[in-house]
């Protein structure tokens, strides 16, 4: 496990975007650890279509930040070989749906190599996948494909929702000796907050959920792109007389059951919110597991507010698909308050 040294603290947090925090995370990781290599389509000279790798090729050279041929299975497959030799590849998949060609490598090798070799050959690969919609993208550019990753033992599945976490969790992912699917909510790339890249408070470990807002009436369980929506819904819910707690999972695998269960036992009601389709989505696991562990504390079944069970819609229709404040409040209203 590479140690993530906390950088010398510098004061003066400045507004930064999630995109900038991600870039900075890679930069710092590359500076500290010469085995960290960034690779993918257009990540070098261009700095990525979302500019997340901007400047890395210039600073570290094309051998450390490499424009690969256009072939996702090849990218991930060669990253496996590089990791076998001791490097820590950070792979960028250009968009969510373009990670699919790499699924055989991901499911049959990346996820299983540690297991197949009795721990002799772990693969410290970070696979960055910009995911989700809300940016007016055309088909194949807006999938929320976390269900596939979550159902694959051996993968760690991380997704930040804040600028600070973008840095901290990406650092932790790159430092992890296990393969991490790092899901970047693309519509939060340009979200901003005051943050000092020089002094990342402390790089969080992977696997701890955070209560982003405390409340007593019910718990909203969410992650990634849906966190701001849930926080907004919690504000709006005050008018209805509900005091909602909001839990940000931060990683889907490992799933921080304890934090969630404690919250739900306290509030007695829960709604899981995510953008991915509901049927067989991550919310199903969360709802099932929370129910199993909180059964006698629950005043109502755990509900889910998710994308519909349809292919992601074209840009002009996506607003009808995305779980919004109203839909969350509707679900909260259905939590059997009359009982």
């Amino acid at each position, binding site marked *: 496990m590479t140690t993530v040294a906390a950088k010398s603290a510098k004061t003066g947090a400045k507004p930064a975007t999630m995109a900038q925090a991600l870039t900075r995370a890679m930069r710092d990781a590359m500076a500290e650890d010469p085995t960290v290599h960034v690779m993918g389509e257009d990540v070098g000279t*261009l700095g990525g279509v979302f500019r997340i790798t901007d400047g890395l090729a210039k600073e570290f050279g094309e051998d450390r930040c490499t*424009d690969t*041929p256009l072939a996702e299975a090849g990218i991930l497959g060669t990253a496996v070989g590089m990791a076998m030799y001791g490097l820590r590849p950070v792979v960028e998949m250009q968009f969510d749906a373009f990670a699919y060609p790499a699924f055989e490598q991901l499911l049959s090798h990346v996820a299983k190599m540690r297991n197949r070799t009795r721990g002799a050959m772990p693969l410290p690969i970070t696979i960055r996948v910009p995911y989700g919609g809300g940016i007016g993208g055309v088909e194949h550019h807006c999938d929320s494909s976390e269900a596939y990753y979550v159902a694959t033992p051996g993968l760690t599945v991380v997704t930040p929702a804040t600028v600070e976490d973008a840095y901290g969790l990406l650092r932790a992912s790159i430092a992890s000796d296990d393969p991490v699917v790092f899901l970047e909510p693309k519509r939060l790339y340009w979200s901003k907050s005051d943050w000092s890249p020089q002094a990342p408070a402390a790089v969080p470990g992977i696997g701890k959920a955070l209560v982003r807002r405390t409340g007593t009436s019910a718990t909203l369980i969410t992650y990634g792109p849906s966190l701001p929506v849930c926080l907004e819904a919690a504000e709006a819910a005050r008018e209805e007389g509900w005091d909602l707690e909001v839990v940000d999972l931060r990683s889907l695998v490992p799933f921080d059951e304890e934090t969630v269960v404690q919250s739900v036992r306290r509030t007695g009601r829960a709604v899981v919110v995510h953008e991915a389709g509901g049927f067989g989505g991550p919310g199903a696991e969360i709802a099932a597991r929370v129910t199993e562990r909180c059964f006698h504390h629950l005043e109502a079944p755990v509900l889910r507010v998710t994308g519909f069970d*349809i292919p992601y819609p*074209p840009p002009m*229709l996506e607003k009808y698909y995305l779980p919004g404040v109203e839909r969350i409040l509707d679900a909260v209203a259905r939590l059997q308050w009359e009982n």
Partner: protein
Amino acid sequence: MTVQELPGAGASHRPTPPPAWRPRTDAAPLLPDAEPYRVLGTDAADRLDPALMRRCYAELVRGRRYNAQATALTKQGRLAVYPSTVGQEACEIAAAMVLEEQDWLFPSYRDTLAAVARGLDPVQALTLLRGDWHTGYDPREHRIAPLSTPLATQLPHAVGLAHAARLRGDDVVALAMVGDGGTSEGDFHEALNFAAVWQAPVVFLVQNNGFAISVPLAKQTAAPTLAHKAVGYGMPGRLVDGNDIAAMHEVLTEAVRRARAGGGPTLIEAVTYRMEAHTNADDATRYRGDAEVEAWKAHDPIDLLERELTARGILDEAGITAARDEAEAMAASLRDGMNADPVVDPMDLFAHVYAEQTDRLREQAAMLRAELEAEDQA
């Protein structure tokens, strides 16, 4: 078995290898020419068909105007995004022109112009990029497959369709388009291999426009040319000047004819250049210099043809003006078509997921309907 038991042991011998190991076909005829095939500006231009060339010219001018109009529409917010084919019009148009009514075109996401040149309403061709639906037309009506965004994935579709048509005894050729970057994908490989094994009537047209977004060809492949990839599948590879519409038309026509006659697939690399950025959202100055673009300006597909035709007296001022007027009319109609706000129905989200709507989708549709009604009332 011991040495003693072996017949002829002890004597120097020349074992005859089993027949299976001989090369199955001669590789030489599969190899592309050393240089891209050209017609314009060469002696081969003496054989040009004036009527055909005038049509090509009009189409090229229309195609260039289409590109300009589509890019303008992105600036007006009428298109979410547009990948331009300025500089590549000869490839786009020749691909459409060489096909018969019953043939199929398999465009990549960049190839709306080829679809338009095949006769598709530009508004329908641009639906995907406008964003009111994914595919804006009935593929079977136009025999144009949906624009394919996942790169190279359309190639096996073309092979399967062509193969199916042949099995059914139908006279159908499929022409599939892909970029230089797309040739690196596994689907490219698998499609070409299936096509050759099945001797399917397919023509693969690679537009080598020099870049896959920012990645130049040199980082994409070390092959002598992309056309050389044909050899490894046992099909002929052709290298052609993609800015020379006369050459494109001739080479594509020949490949389509071969496919139609049962001669199997062909891989064609058209050497061309993407004159504009990857899409309107891209900034090409980040990865390429002006000099390269300038060099290619001197090799513009419209200029090449216009010079040749005017020099030969096949095209005159009147012809040029007529082509431009036609192009302007198309542009005006496209502008009008795109300025009309598309009518979208949110309930369509649930209409085409399955042949019969599932209970679950019915429930979700009801929920959305209720939300919309509540909004209407508010």
